């Protein structure tokens, strides 16, 4: 019995070893596409996070903007200016920098909405699945009704209603919160349904019954026993939902009901640039669009891989 050791020691090391030996890590290292998309996602996150410090220009500093630089094409084209890699917009702002700042807004809105949906959905799903009965029936009916309408429409409606209820002067300040709320509310159903489904399965498993026989209280069973066992699918949904939330935000901003033009997200940039498409200044709208697609695609690829990795029978 040489390996007897005080229980509880070396937990971190243990976890790390388990992680590296796990099949998930193995499948990660075996998939170049996944590693590439992880890298792209990481770069996008870092670029967005540190935009104020690493962006070549500050598009919101009016002093540094010169209207004479307006509508310059990308640097490699004939009229390009090496200072502006991807060209400038109609007001002389560096497109590359606005993309970095725009991605920052897109990601913040995306993460905040996912977090909102996740907390709401997982909470309701757990309660619904464990309590059952009328409460469950009610929550699931609401979910059914909401699910029969596309998320984008729900978000649009919430956004529209919020706009008509809130005072007009505060629209721009509140736009961010309204947007997060709208996208967040439109996305909770998926989490709730999945978590409810898993909870129904888990609560009938014998380890939960064993806990009940011991006398453990409901709330403790939910949080300590059931919650950790339903997180796998939630992680997958959250990843894919992040991509959807970023697209939804971009779409709403594109439709003019998202974040205000003073703090443009990628969607706003595309909307603004769209007006110059016909005059030939394609770079103002295409590059932000490209950035959006690459970001969303990378996140989607990660989500896809994660789903397969957590569900080995699919391979």
């Amino acid at each position: 019995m040489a390996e007897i050791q005080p229980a509880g020691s070396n937990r971190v090391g243990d976890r790390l070893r388990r992680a590296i030996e796990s099949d998930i890590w193995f499948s990660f290292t075996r998939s170049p596409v996944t590693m590439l998309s992880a890298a792209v996602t990481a770069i996008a996150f870092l670029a967005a996070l540190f935009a104020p410090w690493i962006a070549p220009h500050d598009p919101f500093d009016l002093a540094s903007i010169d209207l004479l630089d307006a509508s310059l094409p990308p640097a490699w084209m004939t009229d390009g200016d090496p200072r502006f890699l991807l060209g400038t917009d109609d007001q002389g702002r560096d497109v590359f920098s606005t993309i970095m700042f725009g991605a920052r807004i897109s990601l913040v809105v995306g993460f905040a909405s996912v977090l909102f949906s996740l907390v709401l959905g997982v909470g309701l799903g757990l309660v619904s699945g464990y309590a059952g009965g009328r409460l469950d029936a009610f929550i699931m009916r609401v979910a059914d009704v909401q699910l029969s309408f596309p998320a984008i429409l729900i978000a649009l409606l919430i956004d529209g209603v919020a706009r008509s209820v809130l005072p007009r002067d505060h629209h721009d300040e509140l736009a961010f919160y309204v947007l997060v709320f709208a996208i967040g509310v439109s996305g909770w159903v998926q989490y709730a349904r999945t978590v409810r489904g898993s909870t129904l399965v888990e609560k009938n498993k014998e380890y939960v019954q064993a806990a009940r026989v011991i006398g453990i209280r409901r709330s403790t069973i939910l949080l300590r026993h059931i919650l950790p066992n339903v997180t796998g699918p939630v992680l997958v949904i959250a990843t894919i939902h992040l991509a959807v939330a970023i697209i939804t935000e971009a779409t709403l901003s594109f439709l003019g009901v998202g974040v205000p033009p003073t703090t443009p997200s990628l969607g706003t940039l595309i909307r603004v640039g769209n007006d110059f498409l016909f005059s030939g200044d394609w770079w103002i709208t295409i590059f932000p669009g490209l950035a959006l697609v690459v970001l969303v695609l990378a996140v989607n690829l990660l989500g896809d891989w994660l789903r397969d990795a957590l569900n080995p029978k699919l391979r």
Partner: protein
Amino acid sequence: MPAFLLRRFLQSIVVMLTVALIAFGLFRYVGDPINNLVGQDTTLEERDELRERLGLNDAFIVQFGRFVRDVSIGEFGFSYQHRRPVRELVAERLPATLELSLVSALLALLVGAPMGVYTALRRRGFVSRGFMTLSLIGISLPTFLIGILLILFFGVILRWLPTFGRGEVVALGWWTTGFLTASGLKSLVMPSITLALFQMTLIMRLIRAEMLEVLRTDFIKFAHARGLPARSVHFRHALKNTMVPVITITGLQLGSIIAFAIITESVFQWPGMGLLFIQAIGEVDIPVMAAYLVLIAFFFVAINLVVDVLYFVVDPRLRADKATANGQ
């Protein structure tokens, strides 16, 4: 059998009433209806009188009842923005949206479904992997961006296709159609592809996932073990069993095409209901918003009912008399 459908029908009515309640809440309490009807110089007395005459002082339930009655005969009041009956506006815009949605739905279904089946059966094939990669790009491309890219290539650079509007339309009674003129058909190409692409990839991925799920079941294994040819196992046994979930999902997707039309219409300046709605949101034109909400809900509920009927046709377990379900 009728019990199941009757229950679903009652549920649909409850959904419609709930949506009507939201629409009514918008209509009645968001923004003062009186302010939107009268000018600045109307006196308080005149306002009160108008309020009384319009029944705005009645009990909530009476007002709501009246609203439901009006809505059910298509009466949505006046648009604040356009100063015209909402009913007229909608009737003008409805054909454009329905024609666009119909073409897109057919496109999405007829291309997406076979691709889904194919990728499930030839899971490791080269073409399947290609489709899967394309589909991932498909769901990563926001609808509006697809529209913009199409406009850039086929409208601005190549100048092959018109970039906005419906082209020439022919009036058939109150319905206007773009199917009968060359310019109408040409105008339809880019918007319908834009609208269909996202749904197409979704339908393909969902059918593939369901099909793979069914292919793993015991009865498929047993069918193979009885020596049934692969074609029969795949199409007669597997495909039909994927139908139940696929019908649900496809139904939902077709519904969402009408909703996603908002984006496409706004990119292509397509004179449909979605464009009307997005403008209404911008202008806080409540009656139009309420009307759109109710109408869209009606489409969704109708599609869901059709889906339920289809379930019934496909799955004998729903048809079964419960008493014999576990009998010996």
